[in-house]
């Protein structure tokens, strides 16, 4: 069933009771609702926005950034309407390596994934692939290659079309007899029972200010890393430090994947670069040897002709003159980057280690619903810098030694004394309600239940204790399917 909460002015919702109430109708919330419905459970699925993008809803995400990059993406990376951030998702899918689930020295005392996470998660790989329309066994269909590296391997990945959850699942949810989908339904408070150890109801408001009480046996927040932290910190009427925050862990260990531009390269092995989307991942041996994080290094070679307009044609001619003149090339390339065929740039997706000082807090400004907005202080650590520099230096050596390419690295890769000034990101927001066995190290337990609250769970990448070196969506879906299976048995 489908209900626009903006059009509900009475208290009819209070008469309903569900098995589960889920806040957030992005990939995680939709996947969880569908899984629970399949297993016979009734679900209230709450979407704060509408079916389409609206400024009114998106504005709720607006926040401040004090950390790296003066990161405006806190407001715009994610989309606040039905289908969530899948509405502008790129579709690249990969998954964690086994080493990513280990308790590594790299984490400097911070806990990693609970034991058994790897097996629990990968049971759901094929189902997760079907959700995002990746053909069966796509990950086994890596391009045949003569690459014979020692410290790096070709990255395993597959591509979703990409699947827009809004388009793919809206009609199914509208028809569902088990799921009630509410839009313009904004979670504004979580009320606990008197013992403060279980949720009594969700207070949910439409954009006109009308409040509704949603009751269920179990509750799930699937609102993304920054918004989930925002909600838990704001709900402090009964627990002054916020819900799940008894150890001051909500909002901490915010993680992204660094997107560092390593520099440029010239191609030697043209055959290898004919393969689309050439990407390298460090081997486990290499990561252990240097105690560094995981990553994907993306070699984007300029090998295809492009369709230029008149002005662009002029620029192209000038560029060709520069590129084809050996003397000019050598001089000019010292001052600027030209898209000469056979050249390319190296981008990256690099693991960030959990860092207590990289965090989300609340500031004084309030949103439409009176909730304090977030301030993001995204921070890198010396361990992150070490990962970035080792990756750059060693891929440059390996591609030279294997006669694949020659790489010109940025100065900050080659020289430890030059600060890294290029911590790009991927809009992969993780951490902030991290999973931990010990409540002192995180916010949810190994079953994604909030420590200290019996019937409140968190779904999505906010529970990742570490972020690995891969795009997070497929992992998120596998985890969510496992969570649904677990919750249905309660």
């Amino acid at each position, binding site marked *: 069933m489908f209900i626009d909460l903006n059009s509900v002015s009475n208290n009819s919702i209070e008469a309903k009771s569900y098995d589960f109430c889920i806040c957030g109708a992005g990939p995680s919330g939709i996947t969880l609702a569908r899984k629970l419905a399949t297993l016979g459970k009734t679900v209230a699925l709450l979407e704060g926005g509408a079916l389409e993008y609206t400024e009114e809803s998106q504005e709720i995400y607006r926040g401040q950034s004090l950390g790296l990059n003066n990161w405006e993406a806190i407001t715009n990376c994610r989309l606040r309407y039905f289908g969530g951030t899948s509405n502008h998702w790129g579709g690249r899918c990969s998954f964690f390596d086994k080493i990513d689930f280990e308790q590594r020295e790299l984490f400097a005392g911070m806990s990693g994934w609970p034991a058994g996470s790897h097996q629990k998660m990968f049971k759901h790989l094929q189902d997760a692939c079907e959700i995002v329309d990746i053909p069966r066994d796509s990950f086994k269909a890596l391009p045949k290659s003569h690459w014979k590296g020692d410290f790096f391997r070709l990255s395993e990945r597959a591509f979703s079309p990409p699947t827009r959850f809004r388009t793919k699942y809206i009609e199914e949810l509208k028809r569902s007899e088990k799921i009630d989908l509410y839009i313009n339904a904004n979670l504004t408070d979580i009320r606990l029972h008197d013992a403060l150890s279980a949720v009594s109801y969700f207070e949910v408001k439409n954009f006109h200010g009308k409040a509704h009480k949603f009751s269920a046996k179990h509750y799930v927040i699937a609102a993304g890393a920054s918004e989930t932290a925002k909600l838990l910190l704001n709900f402090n009427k009964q627990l002054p430090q916020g819900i799940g925050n008894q150890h001051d862990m909500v909002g901490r260990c915010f993680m992204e994947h660094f997107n560092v531009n390593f520099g440029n390269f010239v191609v030697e092995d043209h055959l290898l670069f004919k393969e689309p989307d050439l990407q390298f991942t460090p081997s486990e041996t290499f990561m252990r040897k240097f105690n560094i994080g995981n990553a994907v290094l993306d070699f984007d070679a300029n090998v295809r002709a492009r369709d230029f307009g008149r002005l662009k044609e002029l620029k192209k001619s000038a560029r060709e003159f520069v590129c084809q003149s050996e003397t000019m090339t050598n001089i000019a390339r010292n001052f600027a980057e030209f898209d000469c065929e056979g050249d390319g740039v190296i981008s990256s997706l690099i693991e960030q280690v959990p860092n207590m000082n990289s965090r989300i807090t609340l500031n004084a400004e309030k949103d439409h619903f009176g909730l304090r907005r977030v301030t993001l202080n995204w921070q890198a650590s010396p361990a992150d810098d070490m990962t970035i*520099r080792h990756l750059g230096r060693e891929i440059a050596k390996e591609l030279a030694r294997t006669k694949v390419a*020659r790489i010109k690295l940025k100065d900050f890769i*080659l020289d430890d004394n030059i600060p890294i000034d290029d911590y790009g990101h991927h809009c992969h927001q993780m951490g902030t309600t991290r999973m931990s066995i010990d409540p002192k190290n995180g916010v949810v337990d190994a079953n994604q239940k909030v420590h200290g609250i019996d019937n409140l769970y968190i779904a999505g990448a906010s529970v990742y204790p570490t972020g690995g070196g891969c795009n997070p969506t497929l992992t998120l879906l596998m985890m969510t399917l496992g969570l649904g299976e677990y919750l249905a048995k309660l």
Partner: protein
Amino acid sequence: MALAAQPLVLNGLITPDQSSQSPAISLPQQQADYIVVGGWTLLKSDLLTDES
């Protein structure tokens, strides 16, 4: 003409045992030495090859 005969300004030299910034690197092919010229990581042999 061999490039090695040209005067070169070397920004740095990274070899398996000369990198001061990282632990000793045990490369699979110990013979492979690298030289950094103007930010480019090259094989030493790159500078000795006359491809003209």
